[in-house]
């Protein structure tokens, strides 16, 4: 369950290297513990939806632990009341009032409050797509959580973001006989459903986009694979800037280009079979 294909693709636009079509790099496998952060995950997944409109709750001075489950919200009150005076009712109400007042005066930091609300977004000025990030996972929780995380991270990096767009699921099915030998009549079906989410960054600074991608890779979530297409845009007089940078590029390529071509001493009357029998080929064969 927790073994994703982590594929990261970065393709540059035509202005950069002329390489238009994105291509997959070799998928690397990452193994992570399934139990890791499962707790925090469910906490956010549930809390974001249920507390959407409940701004008042957030003013209550809560410890982090008590936030994790709504049932514990009243725990401090019920405990405090018997301590103050278990016999008299008016005393108890006073205590709760006092706590309520405290809740109104003190509050969680804004950044912590924001975790319980819908993610904030920047507005795109031009709407020019700069980066497409695709998240893939076999579990809804993981991919939803990480998409949410990515959107929040983009907000703090000042990147306008659209999404997460739920892309079509990839369903793979296999049918195998139940037995190890013959008995084809009794078979069993298995399937693997890959869930995908698309997050698009619009007219962001390329450096900020790189920082965002690096941040997401650093905090990669278990069971979630990432794939990014990055586009860079140039001004209209690209040719001028390319002409200016041409000598530099040529200079940097010189050591590589020097390797091309035929050696003069090699071509002097040598038979191809001699070459195939030469030490260089023999060396490889004996490895």
């Amino acid at each position, binding site marked *: *369950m927790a*073994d994703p294909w982590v594929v990261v693709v970065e393709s540059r636009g035509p202005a950069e290297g002329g390489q238009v079509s994105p291509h997959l790099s070799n998928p690397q496998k990452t193994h992570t513990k399934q139990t890791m952060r499962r707790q925090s995950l469910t906490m956010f997944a549930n809390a974001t939806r249920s507390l959407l409109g409940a701004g008042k709750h957030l003013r209550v001075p809560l410890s982090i632990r008590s936030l994790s489950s709504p049932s514990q919200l009243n725990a401090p009150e019920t405990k405090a009341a018997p301590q103050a005076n278990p016999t008299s009712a008016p005393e108890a109400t006073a205590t709760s009032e006092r706590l309520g007042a405290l809740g109104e005066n003190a509050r969680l930091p804004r950044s912590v409050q924001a975790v319980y609300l819908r993610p904030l977004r920047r507005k795109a000025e031009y709407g020019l797509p700069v980066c497409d990030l695709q998240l893939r996972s*076999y579990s809804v929780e993981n991919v939803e959580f990480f998409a949410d995380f990515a959107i929040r991270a983009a907000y703090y990096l000042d990147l306008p973001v659209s999404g997460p767009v739920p892309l079509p699921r990839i369903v793979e099915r296999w049918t195998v*006989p139940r037995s190890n030998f013959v008995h084809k009549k009794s078979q069993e079906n298995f*399937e*693997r459903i890959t869930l995908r989410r698309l997050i698009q960054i619009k007219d962001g600074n390329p450096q900020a986009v790189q920082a965002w991608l690096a941040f997401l890779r650093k905090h990669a979530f278990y069971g979630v694979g990432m794939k990014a297409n990055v586009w860079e845009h140039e001004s209209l007089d690209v040719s001028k800037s390319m002409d200016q940078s041409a000598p530099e590029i040529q200079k940097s390529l010189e050591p590589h280009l020097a390797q091309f071509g035929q050696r003069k001493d090699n071509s002097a009357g040598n038979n*191809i079979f001699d070459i*195939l029998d030469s030490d260089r080929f023999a060396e490889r064969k004996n490895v």
Partner: protein
Amino acid sequence: MSKMASMFRPKKLDLSGFVNTRLIRDHNKRNAFEQTEPERQALRYMIRNTSLPQRVRAQAQLQLSQMHAYTRPTQIKNRCVASGTARAVFRDFRINRFQFRMQALAGELPGVKKASW
């Protein structure tokens, strides 16, 4: 060139996990093919190149046919890494259909569940 398959056998076992004679043999074939691929390609190119003299092309043909069978890509067969079986091996997981079922039911294959629709 001797025709011994032992020349492709490493001195020390270079495989881990499930090991089988046939699995080792297949592994050796893969290594042999990898090592001799440039030579094979050079000879294949010479055979097909009509601008070369006929004698050279014939020589190349002979040389290619005399290469060891282990250096041929057609000798390579996908085998189950968990049981060594050569039949019904899934490319996605590199295991046999029965091993696939066992591992899927044990939850060892990420994302694979019993399907019902």
